[in-house]
């Protein structure tokens, strides 16, 4: 029979009486970096598990897209008319756009895909969308290296703007991608429709940013209303990537920049980054409001 309570020692717990598994949102994610690291490693090995080509898919996807766009948009439809190094223009855009669409897509699926853990263990649920973003960032590295090599072979003379442009573009996509991944992963738990809606947005994004065509085409089309086009943070990120890589490859960088980049690109970029951070805060508020319903709706 059970030993009496008074005969057993009682452990003195030096901790306050508090709600179990307190969650500070993204702050908790940052605090628990070791767990985040394990989840990122798991995602990296898990995203292409049971596939023969494995991680090569993250190269094959953008490369095949590149070939299709280059051939059909560039050569057949003539979007490359009058543009130097159109393939680099295209590829630079593709690299950063792919980072965004991968974050958005994988992030949206992240909560549903980890229901085994979420239904049984208490942890900050923001971990999963953030981990998806970091995995996409990891996949961005080789593509960027390829881009740099191609640029150097094409006679690249990097300007001082290259590194800050690159970092600002990454900052925009990281913040915006995480914000959207948070909201859509949550929404996807309640209504699977959101997973399908992501594909539509992804398609729009590929055509809605200056990678298959130069920004000057938009200026020709929209005239002095082309600021509307720049309200899309991904457009700004893509233009920053063009500024970082493509401009430096062309013969007369200053003339190219004047023709194909908007005025005040830095202001647009910083504005887009600020707006993305605001969206991230809003996304966190929405996530915190509904996250306690997640375990019971994961079926």
């Amino acid at each position, binding site marked *: *029979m059970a*030993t009496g*309570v008074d005969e*057993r*020692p009682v452990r003195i717990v030096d901790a306050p009486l508090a*709600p179990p598994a307190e969650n500070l949102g993204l702050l908790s994610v940052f605090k628990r970096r070791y767990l985040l690291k394990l989840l990122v490693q798991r995602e990296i090995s898990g995203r292409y598990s049971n596939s023969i080509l494995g991680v090569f898919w993250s190269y094959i996807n953008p490369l095949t897209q590149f070939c299709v766009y280059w051939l059909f948009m560039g050569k057949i439809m003539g979007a490359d008319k009058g543009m130097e190094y159109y393939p680099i223009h295209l590829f630079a855009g593709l690299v950063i756009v792919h980072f965004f669409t991968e974050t958005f897509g994988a992030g949206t699926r992240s909560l549903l895909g980890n229901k*085994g853990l979420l239904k049984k263990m208490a942890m900050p649920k923001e971990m999963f969308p953030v981990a998806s973003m970091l995995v996409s960032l990891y996949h961005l590295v080789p593509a960027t290296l390829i881009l740099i090599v191609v640029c150097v072979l094409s006679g690249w003379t990097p300007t001082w703007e290259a590194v800050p442009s690159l970092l600002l573009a990454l900052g925009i996509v990281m913040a915006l991608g995480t914000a959207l991944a948070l909201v859509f992963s949550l929404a996807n738990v309640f209504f699977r429709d959101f997973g399908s809606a992501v594909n539509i947005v992804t398609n729009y994004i590929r055509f809605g940013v200056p990678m298959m065509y130069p920004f000057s085409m938009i200026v020709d089309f929209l005239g002095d209303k082309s600021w509307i086009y720049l309200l899309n943070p991904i457009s700004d990120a893509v233009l920053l990537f063009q500024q970082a890589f493509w401009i430096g490859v062309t013969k007369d960088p200053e003339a190219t920049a004047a023709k194909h980049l908007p005025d005040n690109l830095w202001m647009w970029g910083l504005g887009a980054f600020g707006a993305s951070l605001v969206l991230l805060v809003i996304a966190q508020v929405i996530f915190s409001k509904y996250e*306690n319903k997640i*375990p019971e709706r994961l079926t």
Partner: protein
Amino acid sequence: MTLRQAQDAGAADSIVVDGVTKHFTLRYHRSIKDITVAKMKGRAISNTFKALDDVTFTIKQGESVGLMGLNGSGKSTLLKLISGVMRPDTGSVKTRGQIAGLIATGAGFHPQLSGRENIFLNAAIYGLSEEETAEIYDDVVKFAELGDHLNSPVGNYSSGQYSRLGFSVAVHIDSDIFLADEVLAVGDKPFKKKCMEKMEEIRDSGRTVVYVSHAAGSVKRMCDRVICLESGRLVFDGDVDEGIEYLHYGEDDGKSSAAQKRLDAADSALGAEV
């Protein structure tokens, strides 16, 4: 009882559940088409049910409490609220210190990861660092007795192997509160025996134990207090024997002497067969 009085005077509160209610939404129809059809036919689109209804109790540090009740009475939901996996709709749950344990027979594992990787992931979710996990790793592996299977994906494990690994990780976490939900439902007899001994060891080290089981024998052996749930409401809180009596678990087979025999038999089999 003197046991209770001694405890009330001494130990600090470990788990405080105060007026907790939890609703679940049952949905019959999800798509617009289904909802329209249901509306036209005058059927309900969804209804909610109360998994827990105004449950209030306090567990002191060091107590070992058996949580009993029929299937669907809210035991696992209550454990999920205590562990922090879910949060109550109204009321509050407060706990003191580190929590570890099993909810609804299995741990949260990732099917694609190997047993080894899952040990590290699971321990990290409990808040252990890499070094802390490395320290307990050998004990976890030894206790789980999985041999070569440790390197194959957890998705390929049998239900017994799965719960072995989950239980092994949970018991090796230095927790202040240990939650055990039907841990003995799967697993073979020698492993059940080992689990029972390990849980007694946890209890005897002064940690709080909440033990969910349908087996009167093992609850008698493990616990010094029983809480019974019925359709989400707390219907009994008190002495173990009275609690088991309350649920009529002992009388299922008619005569009381036969029931006592069965209890003893269940005890020796560590109970999970009830």
